[in-house]
């Protein structure tokens, strides 16, 4: 699956997207962040203040306990400031 990063998360990750293949026991957004943080130091640093980070699965806003099974694209971003 593909992960997208936006705004200062994108800057801290120094990339807008990457492909990941989490093992099947990584079931939720929270677990994806845990799994990714364990192997990727800059990800761990960028996702330090985890409560404020929001996520979407295939263009739908989700909570951090949302299941990622079947997801094509997961986006992470700070709180929105549009309009």
């Amino acid at each position, binding site marked *: 699956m593909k992960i*997208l990063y*936006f*705004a*200062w998360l*994108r800057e801290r990750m120094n990339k807008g997207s990457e492909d990941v293949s989490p093992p099947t026991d990584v079931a939720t957004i929270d677990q994806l962040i845990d799994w990714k943080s364990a192997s990727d130091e800059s990800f761990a640093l960028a996702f330090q203040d985890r409560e404020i980070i929001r996520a*979407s699965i295939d*263009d*739908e*806003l989700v909570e951090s306990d949302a299941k990622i099974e079947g997801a094509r694209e997961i*986006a992470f*971003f*700070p*709180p*929105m*400031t*549009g*309009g």
Partner: protein
Amino acid sequence: MWVRIQQEPFDPGAESNAFFLTDGAAGATVTFTGLVRSTPDNPIDALILEHHPTMAKKQIERFANEAMEKFELVDIAVIHRFGEMKVGEVIVQVMAASPHRQAAFDGANYVMDWLKTDAPFWKQEVTSDGAKWVQHRKSDDQAREKWQTKTPPKQS
């Protein structure tokens, strides 16, 4: 109902006038126009808006459709820009048409409140010191709460 996400500047008055022409049954139209501002307290040179293109369009279409269902609207339209924009340029415009003025006010207000917190756009303010991410405001989360009441807003 239509939503346009675009990089190019647009003429807000011309967009309103075009919208009026298509809403024959609606006597009341409310237009919200959000502009790039630079104030003495917070002087800026420009704004840069980053966005998630597919999700931005889907989310705003959802809020616009919800507004159509919740309030007695004849039509609603949203234009939102991304990329770099200068002071005085328009960032966003929402136009809601209804036979009832309160419904037109509520429709545009509803879409703006949800767009602010749940449409994937992120602003950077550009000054001589460089670009700085705009902080999300708690008041924007609170603004949505007025739509959570069980009784629908009064029509008039």
